[in-house]
């Protein structure tokens, strides 16, 4: 069978599986739709959380980012796993004990205020839509490269699949499809990683392979060889970063705290039977996530090494098949500065910005670009997102591995998109309609509203996927920064401080949100040319500023709350109740 047939087969079979599961587990009540009736086993929930969490960004982009960032890539590895420790210890068990459906539910009840609930809903919807646009782009990339359909059609197929299981199945359907998607994606990630680790080092376990010697008889360790190769070409050594220590510190912290404050992750812990199960489940989630996250740095390093060795100083006419395939997809470009037909891969940009291809071909047959020229010797442009997808081809792995990776990338993107859509639809039908504007709505009416909201959210997400606004890639930092600066402090203080009142919490959320929003928007949207370290406050980049937003939130909340009156007695009783596990104190 050809690779293309295998890809259709693997992707088709996985889609059929997801839809089958969704039909078997339709939601009949709002409780099933929102939190799968609170009956999900902690291990199952851990797996579903892992699939929910690991998006197209984790599966497709992260190893590529690390490959090109080296040590600086650690911010993602620590940031996106360390958040689970905070979630397990500081938030999840108490929120589960509180026992409602959503994060705005908790904030509205704990701060006895509809205003606080609405502020939380606004944060939640903004965070979730930012995130979902990225998922749809991931679906588009996989479809256009592997299934050879136009990106638009790919997004529409993806929307159709998510529609079936999110709108029909609600949280119950999503949970069990996410378990299947986790299995597909982790298998798809690990198999090529084992192969590549074995090819490069002779040890199939990537976590050990990255610390082993290269199997070329040189006696050099992988990281040593990579450092040497890269510094020879004018890059920074792989194990040295280029970011400042304070920036690394703040980005890691913002990602960790943001992870703990992301509504679509938190809501998964409302689905287990008890507070105790919520703790256990967070542990399992981290185990399942760590499997991919400890493999990613190895994949990144091997990919970088393979890429340099196959591309650098190779004549374009002898370029491997994957190189020209990705060139056709606009994600690789060769700018033959010196006209020798040989690809020189060096530090620096081959031309200004992302490639804008003309219809013409160069002397060796490469696609020409019309970008502005830059100084330097580098002739190769490569989009970081392709590293994981191209890896099996770069390492000459069999066709079924490539098919597996295509199915895995789609599983990662679809599972996260479904989780986000559910959070958005719940926010509209439950938090806005039921709890704020139409409290008399019937259970049936609420369920219908949830399904209509999910459908509307899918259409918006699809639109964002087909016509990605130019700033989407620029604003991913928004989601984490805003979650860290707004939702996390409000939830944390709601549990750990009995004195925190509604005035303090609302002032804190608004301050954290406004500050973080303005700082990121200034450097990313309004004045991108000034986005350099010299202009940043204390040398903290927009990606890391959420931490300062969070500190401001805490400071404002505590001062305002000290100056206003304490929360009523029943709120202090509520806090006492959620602090106890089991039904004690209920």
């Amino acid at each position, binding site marked *: 069978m050809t690779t293309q047939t295998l890809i259709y087969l693997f992707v088709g079979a996985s889609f059929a599986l997801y839809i089958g599961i969704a039909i078997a587990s339709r939601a009949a009540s709002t409780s099933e739709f929102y939190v799968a009736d609170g009956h999900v086993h902690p291990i199952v929930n851990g797996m579903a959380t892992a699939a929910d969490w690991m998006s197209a960004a984790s599966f497709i982009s992260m190893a590529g980012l*690390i490959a090109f960032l080296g040590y600086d890539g*650690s911010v993602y590895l620590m940031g996106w796993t360390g958040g689970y420790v905070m979630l397990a210890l500081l938030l999840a068990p108490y929120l589960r004990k509180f026992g409602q459906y959503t994060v705005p539910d908790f904030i509205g009840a704990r701060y006895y205020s509809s205003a606080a609930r609405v502020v939380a809903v606004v944060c939640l919807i903004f965070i979730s839509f930012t995130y979902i646009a990225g998922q749809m782009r991931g679906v588009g990339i996989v479809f256009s490269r592997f299934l050879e359909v136009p990106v638009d059609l790919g997004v529409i197929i993806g929307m159709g699949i998510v529609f079936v299981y999110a709108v029909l199945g609600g949280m119950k359907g999503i949970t069990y499809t996410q378990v299947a998607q986790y299995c597909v994606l982790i298998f798809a990630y690990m198999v090529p990683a084992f192969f590549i680790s074995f090819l490069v080092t002779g040890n199939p376990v990537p976590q050990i392979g990255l610390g082993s010697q290269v199997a070329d008889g040189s006696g050099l360790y992988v990281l040593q060889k990579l450092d040497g190769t890269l510094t020879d070409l004018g890059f920074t050594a792989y*194990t040295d970063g280029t970011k400042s220590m304070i920036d690394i510190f703040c980005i*890691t912290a913002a990602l*960790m705290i943001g992870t703990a404050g992301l509504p679509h992750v938190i809501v998964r812990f409302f689905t287990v039977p008890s507070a105790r199960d919520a703790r256990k489940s967070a542990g399992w989630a981290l185990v399942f996530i760590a499997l991919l996250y400890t493999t990613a740095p190895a994949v990144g390093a091997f990919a970088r090494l393979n890429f340099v060795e196959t591309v650098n100083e190779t004549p374009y006419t002898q370029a491997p098949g994957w190189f020209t395939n990705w060139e056709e997809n606009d994600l690789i470009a060769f700018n033959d500065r010196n006209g020798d037909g040989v690809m020189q891969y060096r530090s620096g940009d081959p031309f200004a910005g992302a490639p804008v291809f003309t219809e013409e071909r160069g002397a060796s047959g490469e696609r020409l670009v019309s970008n502005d020229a830059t100084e330097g010797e580098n002739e190769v442009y490569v989009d970081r997102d392709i590293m994981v997808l191209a890896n099996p081809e770069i390492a000459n792995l069999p066709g079924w591995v490539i098919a597996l990776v295509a199915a895995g990338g789609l599983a990662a993107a679809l599972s996260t998109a479904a989780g986000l859509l559910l959070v958005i639809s719940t926010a509209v039908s439950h938090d806005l309609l039921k709890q704020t504007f139409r409290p008399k709505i019937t259970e049936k009416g609420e369920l219908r509203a949830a399904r209509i909201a999910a459908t509307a959210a899918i259409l918006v997400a699809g639109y964002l996927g087909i016509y990605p606004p130019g700033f989407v890639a620029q604003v991913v930092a928004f989601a984490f920064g805003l979650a860290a600066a707004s939702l996390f402090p409000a939830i944390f203080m709601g549990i*750990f401080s009995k004195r925190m009142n509604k005035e303090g919490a609302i002032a804190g959320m608004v301050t954290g949100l406004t500050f973080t929003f303005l700082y990121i928007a200034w450097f990313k949207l309004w004045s991108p040319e000034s986005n350099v370290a010299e202009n940043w406050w204390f040398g903290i980049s927009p990606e890391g500023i959420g931490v300062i937003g969070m500190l401001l939130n805490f400071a404002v909340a505590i001062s305002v709350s000290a100056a206003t009156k304490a929360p009523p007695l029943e709120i202090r009783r509520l806090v006492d109740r959620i602090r106890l596990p089991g039904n004690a104190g209920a």
Partner: protein
Amino acid sequence: MDESENAGPESEEQRIARESGYWRANVRLLAVLMTIWFIVSFGCGILFRDFLDQWSLGGYPLGFWFAQQGSIYVFILLIVVYVRKMRVIEREYGVDGE
């Protein structure tokens, strides 16, 4: 272990004392675990990374290993310890009833 077991029905004050004792024990455990969390990630992986890099773990410089591998393993251990310890604390303060 739990005086309320043989002392008959406990008074309101006893219950409050027991429950706040549980909460204090919980917060103490959190403080210890979150300190370790901070040390392995922000400490070993970032602040003291250059210092630790003078040692190696196989081909990994030690600080680099903490940043890209070790901290994640410790995170898992922290949650495991937390889940186990909390069971013990719950039993000790008699708040483990279903």
